[in-house]
């Protein structure tokens, strides 16, 4: 469906100050199963949005639709003023590549490249995507590894790192591209409690620096204390989208049943 002819209309500029991501009427079906049902979401620069919900509620699919790893069935997606998806049509490949530079992604199971050392994992995007000279790419990569507390592991292969260390390298890798926002898909779900603390600490620091983040998570404490917005998804719909405290106080029975299952 990628077509340059549609690129002009699809990539039209949408002026709206401070708004980074805008999703309207987004739907996604896998065969007969409707995973996303008309989702609307708008994220401003600097916001930390936690996306909570039961498994199968569409959280990860929403995140994966944003950078078009998953092709939505309908609706529109605009990222930093660029319309990258509209009514079944994906923008040109160039626009998709630009979109992916804007939205860094961190996966549940890290997906570091196992044949490359930590520093190469981080530098790869700089060399391949940002086309930085080698020396500059390495300097940035080493600096970022230091930022996530892993400079001493720079020349280790991912296989020699713990889960938490791998995830921190993955965060550095995503940061290397200087994205406008980071998408986290259950970043701590595969980690032990100690590693979880390390990864959440890095994420908290990023939020303090003003990084825009969308975080699919089961970490209620993070969502309440670090996130400034809480989105609750259930059955492919957004049933709550408000400040964490407000969502916690919601009288919506679906919301209450979700938080109840947490305290059990």
């Amino acid at each position: 469906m990628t077509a340059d002819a549609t690129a002009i209309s699809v990539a039209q500029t949408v002026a709206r100050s401070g708004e980074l991501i805008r999703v309207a009427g987004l739907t996604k079906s896998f065969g007969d199963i409707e995973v996303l049902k008309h989702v609307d979401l708008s994220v401003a620069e600097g916001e930390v949005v936690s996306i909570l919900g039961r498994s199968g509620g569409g959280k990860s699919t929403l995140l994966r639709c944003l950078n078009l790893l998953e092709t939505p069935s309908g609706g529109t997606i605009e990222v930093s003023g660029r319309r990258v998806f509209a009514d079944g049509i994906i923008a040109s490949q160039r626009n998709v590549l630009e979109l992916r530079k804007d939205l860094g992604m961190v996966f549940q199971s890290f997906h570091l490249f196992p044949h490359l050392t930590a520093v190469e994992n981080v530098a790869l995007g700089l060399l391949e995507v940002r086309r930085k000279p080698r020396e500059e790419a390495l300097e940035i990569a080493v600096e970022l590894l230091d930022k996530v507390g892993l400079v001493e592991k720079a020349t280790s292969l991912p296989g020699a790192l713990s889960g938490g260390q791998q995830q921190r390298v993955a965060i550095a890798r995503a940061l290397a591209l200087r994205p406008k926002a980071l998408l986290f898909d259950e970043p701590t779900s595969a980690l032990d409690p100690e590693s979880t603390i390390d990864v959440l600490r890095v994420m908290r620091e990023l939020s303090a620096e003003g990084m825009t983040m969308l975080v699919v998570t089961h970490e209620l404490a993070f969502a309440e204390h670090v996130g400034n917005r809480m989105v609750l998804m259930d059955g492919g719909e957004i049933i709550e989208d408000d400040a964490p405290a407000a969502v916690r106080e919601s009288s919506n029975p679906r919301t209450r049943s979700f938080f109840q299952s947490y305290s059990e």
Partner: protein
Amino acid sequence: MLFDGFDWAYFFAGLPKALGMTLAFTAAAFVCAIVVGVLVAIMRTARVLPMRWFATGYTELFKNLPLITAIYIIYFGLPSLGIKLDVFIAGTVALVFFYGAYLGEIFRGGFLSVDKGQREAALAMGMRPSRVVTKIILPQAVRVALPGAGTMMVDLLKGTSLLVTIGGAELMTHAATVVSITYRPLESYTLIGLVYFALCFPLSRLVSGLEQRIASGVPLSPVRADLLRRARELVAARVAILEPQRVAR
């Protein structure tokens, strides 16, 4: 006594040419078989069904056909259809078809072993799909396929000996010629066996060594070695700056 009065001079006179022939068959067939194997592996994972059927049919056919049958069909059979190939071409084609089927299976296993998250992670970084294949998928698939492909290369080298049946002029043909002149089969065939061993054993060790080097993450290309050396320097410099601060804290 063994080797008593054995015509060494005759044996050694023809050896270099026969050795060259064996190596030529091996090199030509292995390079082409790799190309066929990669194509078959890609076709077997293709979305287009007829492509998959064709590749699967080819693989099953040559996996279940003795190599010598393939050699005979191509060299002795095809001339009936007006296709007459010289010994080198016929022998190479037979080896390529046969080993291409096995290498296809090995490469397919290599591609399938790469987690689909790897592709997604690379795409999510904004890498072009073609670069994702060359920088991320292929290097990992090759690592998995290397031991199997190396074993196949050694097997192919030994497999060239079957070309004695069509007068391939390689090592085994040379041994047979020596026997026909000297009437000393034990000595001739033992010697040629030693030559095969002397070729195959180091080759096997070389492949194992390469495998271990790759697994340990040692850079194979000078460009990557250089990059890692520079990375180590930058890390050392950074640690040197930070360490006193940490100690002070």
